[in-house]
């Protein structure tokens, strides 16, 4: 009889154990608080994570579990430790062999860092609304424009950058192209953005591109197909955002349980017990949804509906759980890790596609599927 097994295999359980052990040892509450307060990137933690062998780009399940466990201890520094190759899938999936040989090893080894420069000051969720241009002359393109809220922006050795290579037509998502821009190229200016609400250890920057000359060989895939490459990447990155959110929510629940035990179980009222029960219920649902979406993705059969569901539900779970965690722990939470968890959680509903965008994606995918089924039905065997 066929069976469905929702258990992680033993090798992933072992990775989870090692990831948690590493995170608890290296990311102490004092460490997390320091980098949060100072808004600085924990480079030494990133190096240690790579040196430990835990950051294994070749094993996506391992990366998923790693992010979950790191964010369970601290999202800000935890994300820094594993986000050095953020955007790499655009090269591994669509780049040339030359690009893969040059750029992939340097970031998967941890020797270099990269980022993905898509968002612009006037275009966030509306990716097709970007205004940065790339104009071709002979064997190079000249890039002009500005990018906003770019993770790793100030530290990255190169940025995969979305540009417009042909004028906007009625099909706004046409005419966009992706380039690998080395950040030491003349005309690239990077300004670190300060005073984030949460994930303050992560580096976020504004990038200004002023007559930046990029070799034509740095074009990723085909000219004009950048929008599709970016959307494919978001189908991947949203899974990781979902699991970061699950990690934050689980970390908040861990701390609530510690608090409740320390206070004495005999004083617990039903209202608190039910809230804790609901926290667990929502977190486990978010985790299973994310693993389910990841399972489809890692078998090269992504389901955008499932991916967006995992991302939106995971993010909203993180926000809800951290809020309830503060309510239960009061002053303890306010002066400990939980206030940081509460601040960190909110970005999950915003970056890599807002919850609103995710819900629209879910509904539109459903309708596309319905139309496909209807058309298929009329023209096929069912007709």
């Amino acid at each position: 009889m066929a069976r469905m097994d929702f258990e992680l295999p033993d090798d992933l359980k072992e990775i989870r154990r090692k990831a948690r052990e590493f995170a608890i040892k290296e990311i102490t509450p004092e460490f997390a608080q320091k980098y949060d307060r100072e808004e600085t990137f924990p480079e030494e933690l990133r190096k240690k994570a790579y040196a430990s062998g835990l950051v294994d780009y070749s094993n996506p399940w391992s990366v998923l579990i790693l992010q979950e466990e790191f964010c369970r201890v601290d999202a800000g520094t935890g994300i820094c430790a594993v986000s050095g190759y953020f955007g790499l899938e655009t090269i591994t999936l669509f780049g040339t062999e030359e690009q893969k040989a040059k750029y992939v090893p340097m970031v998967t080894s941890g020797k270099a860092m990269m980022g993905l420069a898509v968002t612009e000051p006037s275009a966030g969720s509306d990716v097709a609304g970007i205004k940065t241009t790339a104009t071709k002359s002979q064997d190079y393109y000249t890039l002009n424009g500005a990018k906003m809220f770019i993770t790793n922006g100030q530290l990255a050795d190169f940025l995969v950058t979305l540009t417009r290579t042909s004028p906007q037509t009625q099909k706004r998502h046409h005419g966009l192209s992706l380039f690998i821009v080395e950040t030491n190229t003349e005309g690239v200016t990077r300004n670190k953005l300060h005073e984030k609400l949460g994930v303050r250890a992560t580096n976020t920057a504004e990038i200004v591109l002023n007559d930046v000359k990029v070799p034509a060989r740095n074009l990723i895939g085909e000219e004009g197909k950048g929008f599709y490459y970016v959307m494919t990447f978001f189908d991947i990155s949203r899974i990781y955002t979902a699991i970061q959110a699950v990690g934050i929510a689980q970390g908040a629940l861990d701390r609530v349980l510690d608090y409740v035990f320390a206070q004495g179980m005999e004083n617990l009222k039903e209202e608190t017990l039910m809230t804790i029960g609901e926290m667990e219920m929502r977190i486990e649902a978010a985790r299973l949804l994310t693993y389910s979406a990841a399972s489809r993705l890692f078998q090269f059969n992504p389901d955008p509906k499932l991916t967006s569901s995992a991302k939106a539900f995971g993010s909203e779970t993180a926000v809800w759980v951290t809020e309830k965690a503060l309510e239960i722990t009061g002053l303890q939470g306010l002066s400990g890790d939980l206030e940081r968890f509460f601040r960190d959680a909110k970005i999950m509903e915003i970056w890599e596609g807002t919850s609103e965008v995710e819900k629209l994606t879910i509904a539109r995918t459903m309708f596309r599927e319905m139309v496909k089924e209807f058309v298929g039905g009329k023209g096929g065997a069912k007709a």
Partner: protein
Amino acid sequence: MSSEEYQLLRSNVREFAQKNIEGISAKIERDGLRPETIGAMAAQGFIGARVPGDLGGTELDERGYMIVLEELARVSPSAAVKVLITNSLYLPLAMATGKGKETLKDVASANVNATVAHTSLLEGYREQTGVTVANSRAHGVKDYVLDSDAKLVILAANGSPGTLLLVNGGVEPVNDQTRLGFRGLRFSSIKVDSGDFEVLAENGPGLLEEAFNGMDLAVAAIALGITSGALAKAIDYSKSRTTFEHALKDYQPVAFSLSSLKSEEEMLRNFMYSEGLSGTARVMARVKSTQLARNATKQALQVHGGYGYFGDFGVEKFYRDAMALPLLFSRGAKDMQRLSQAVFESKAGFM
């Protein structure tokens, strides 16, 4: 005061807040409320809003006081909480003795900073040492004190039930705490070693609780101000920001959610400022307004997208403060028990 006078007061406080505080509200979050800003608030009569006129205050009635708190909170919840601590906590406790009353003139004029160590009433309070009185000196450490730079501090000393002391000097802030909200005010433990103190009352916790429960409408007014400030920013932003070639306000989820929250804000304001609110209605106002502030700030931040996550746009502080307000100035379960007791007309919701 007549309704015209209340309107005039509101427009005066709003004008003051816009001219003197709004422009520096991000700086207040970074560096704290500076003495010159507190001095300007005192000169307007806000710091001594409820202090009797013969003791150097403005002697506003409750509605006038709520207007001051709400309008200050619209631009800087930290500034509003500074006024709250002075008028809703320090004032009623200091009035217990002659020596306490004598301090009020200096407090109202902001010559001296005053606070109350009230957090022992709250969920999650865990005192390490506490303050004891021996050999005519108050000595020890009090944890989780908001606005801990103060020279005058009212605190409950160790013991059962614990006397309420007014300590004048010999107080030093130590061990700064992380601050989710009200970053304009210092939040830390205080080390006390003072021979200048006054026993305000023998039943310290009881009096503290009375003062705490008495500020239902004041806390509700700050929550309403936070809601109002956050929604005003979100509404403005959604008019000017375009996405997918349309203003944000043109999209139903944005327009409907903000309009719905704005309706709740207006309804709550009408309720809170109505005459002769009962004790039950006051608790209702505290519970509902703090919840509305959390909902409204969450949506306001979401509407701003990535920009909302950064301090420059002035929305993230409302999100933090809306969460910190009930944690520092409400008692979730205890407030709900007070409400339940009123609804059921007997002890309810205690299991």
